[in-house]
């Protein structure tokens, strides 16, 4: 059966209300780049669909010392901002121009495996996510958002409404390794953000994509970097740690074995680029 109703709420409270009223059978859609292919192919046959494009969740703006990204802001909008260069870089390596004009930053957190690449950059930037539901709003680190393979802490009556990242400058690097030059799923993605004090690494954040059930922080590699000088020895140690601690998988794009080796290669290259 075809869709009976296409809802376009004009505010977050209205969207939350509709979700509460219609329950889990309501298909929630932002950019449509994941949901529409399933609907077009007859795999997903929802009766009711809700669009988040008009609910006031699509802005990207500075707010104090953070960049506030509406969950329904397009990847193109993220690409265009200059407050956080790492996010621009990640958006540039995601999908294609047309898809970036439609796909959203929030949607990138729910991209099917091997997963969204902007999400990897957000994780390296200590992003926080804001969720809204009938019981109110809650705010938590992105690092606590993912719980497993295609699962998150988002309750069935909640919506992801905003993502925030600090705008404080850091040394950053982003490498997405795919089989094609562009518009390709990741073999592995590496995003890092460092602060150095007196030549030594103060704060190290290293996030990996397509190297686990969801974007992960390579905490052993981060520990190897913290307090160290970024020389060849440190870099080698960190790359090895990342390759050892990640949990990659085999799919149609790459094998677990290859992904693990590439984590080591591209963590090294990312660190060398700083």
């Amino acid at each position, binding site marked *: *059966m*075809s869709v009976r109703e296409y809802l376009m709420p004009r505010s977050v409270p209205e969207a939350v209300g509709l979700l509460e009223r219609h329950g889990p059978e309501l298909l929630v859609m932002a950019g449509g780049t994941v949901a529409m292919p399933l609907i077009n*192919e*007859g795999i997903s*046959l929802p009766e009711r669909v809700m669009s988040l494009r008009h609910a006031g969740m699509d802005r990207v703006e500075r707010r104090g010392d953070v960049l506030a990204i509406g969950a329904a802001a397009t990847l193109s909008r993220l690409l265009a901002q200059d407050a956080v260069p790492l996010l621009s870089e990640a958006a540039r390596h995601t999908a294609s121009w047309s898809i970036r004009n439609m796909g959203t930053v929030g949607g990138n957190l729910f991209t099917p495996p091997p997963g969204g690449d902007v999400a990897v950059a957000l994780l390296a930037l200590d992003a926080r996510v804001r969720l809204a539901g009938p019981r109110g709003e809650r705010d938590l680190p992105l690092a606590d958002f993912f719980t497993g393979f295609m699962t998150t802490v988002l309750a069935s009556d909640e919506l992801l409404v905003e993502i925030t990242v600090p705008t404080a400058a850091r040394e950053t690097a982003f490498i997405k390794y795919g089989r094609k030059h562009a518009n390709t799923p990741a073999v592995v993605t590496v995003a890092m953000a460092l602060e150095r004090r007196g030549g030594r690494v103060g704060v190290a954040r290293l996030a990996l994509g397509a190297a686990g059930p969801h974007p992960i922080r390579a905490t052993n590699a981060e520990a190897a970097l913290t307090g160290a000088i970024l020389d060849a020895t440190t870099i080698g140690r960190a790359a090895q740690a990342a390759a050892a601690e990640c949990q990659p998988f085999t799919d149609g794009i790459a094998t677990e074995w290859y992904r693990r080796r590439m984590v080591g290669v591209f963590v090294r290259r990312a660190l060398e680029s700083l």
Partner: protein
Amino acid sequence: MSPARHVVGRSVARSDALGHVTGRTVFTTDRAFPGLLHLKVVRSPVHHARIRGVDLSEAERVPGFVRALTHADVPHNVYTILGLIGVEPEEEFVLAVDRVRYKGEPIVAIVAESEQAALDAVARVKLDLLELPAVFDVEEALKPGAPIVTHWGNNTFMYEGHPCRRVRFGDVEAAFAQADHIVEGRYDTKPIEHAPTETTAAIAVPEANGRFTVYTNTQALYFSLDNTSIILQVPGNQLHFVGGTVGGGFGGKVDVIVEPLATLAAMKTNRPVKYAFSRQEEMQVSSTRSAWRIYMKDGVMADGRLIARKVTSYADSGAYSRQTPYALTKHAANAAGPYAIPNVSIDAYCVFTNRQPTSAMRGFGITMASFALEVQMDKIAEVVGLDPWAVRFINAYHNGDMKPHRKLVEDATLIETMQAAARLVGHELPDAFRTMTSDPRPDRGA
């Protein structure tokens, strides 16, 4: 001659250029017909099974359902695409009868008022299938006890009573005994999907005079017309096929897959019917280039001369023949390569497995032979200590040489092509190779 005919030596714009850059070229599914019906197919979800029953009752209740077509509705339900050129036996069903042999094999066609209704009805058809063991590897398929895919009892296409295409020239075993080196290799290729940007499609339209006009993006308009005529048991002059605009084919639109069912549905409903593959069907159900496994054993002298080549090839035809038996014939005629080898033995098998049926794709039968034998030439060069150019010049065939399948070489150009390639890349050839020609060898004559 009028100036308009003086085109030799001039650059002339393609006749479809204007249409392509203005978006006005009409591709098959760009056509609109009032009352158009949509045909979608119920496909086997498993690789190999006996069909015990098909329940259409829920599907028939979907709003917009018009009718279903089963094998009983198809006047001549069996066809081999190559039957038109005398290749036997007939063995592929338009709609499955009591067995399915590959995942995706068509079982029932559903015709409905909208594509959505057709998809919905397809999803509600209930299949009662008894799964059978399946085989997916060419050599596994030839072992005793392997699941049998065909209806004639073994998993190979029979060539005049033999399970493979055979070429015998000279005595390879005697030559191996004399050779200074034996160089062996196993070469595997994978199926390749043509993935044209436009999917396979046909629209069949009943005309007022009782004929049917079929708009199709087939690469093989006459094959399609003639096969449809045989399958539907109507004279060819009742069918008017319109085609020629193909959004990418590469050999993937030669299998006469959508026209017979679309036309049958138009006959049964007296309305225009569109049968277009979704992208998923195009990628997972439509034919691919065959996967190939080639074993090559070469006998080589210390001076680089190839004196014997033994080839055993297995092509994975998938569950049905399509064009693959023909590919094996071409393969057998070319597997020795453009080289003069006095002793050659080739066994080329067309093997059936429970994979997607494979068929034509650019250079089919030959491309993978070239891959295998050219890598062999490089290996030979390494073993005897010559450079890869030398090994090829030394062994290149000349006009007047006899090929292993008993055809005289004419218009040989390997030598000249290599010389041109060497010039292009700035590779300095020794005089003997730089001045060599494909002329007949003095000692062999014409």
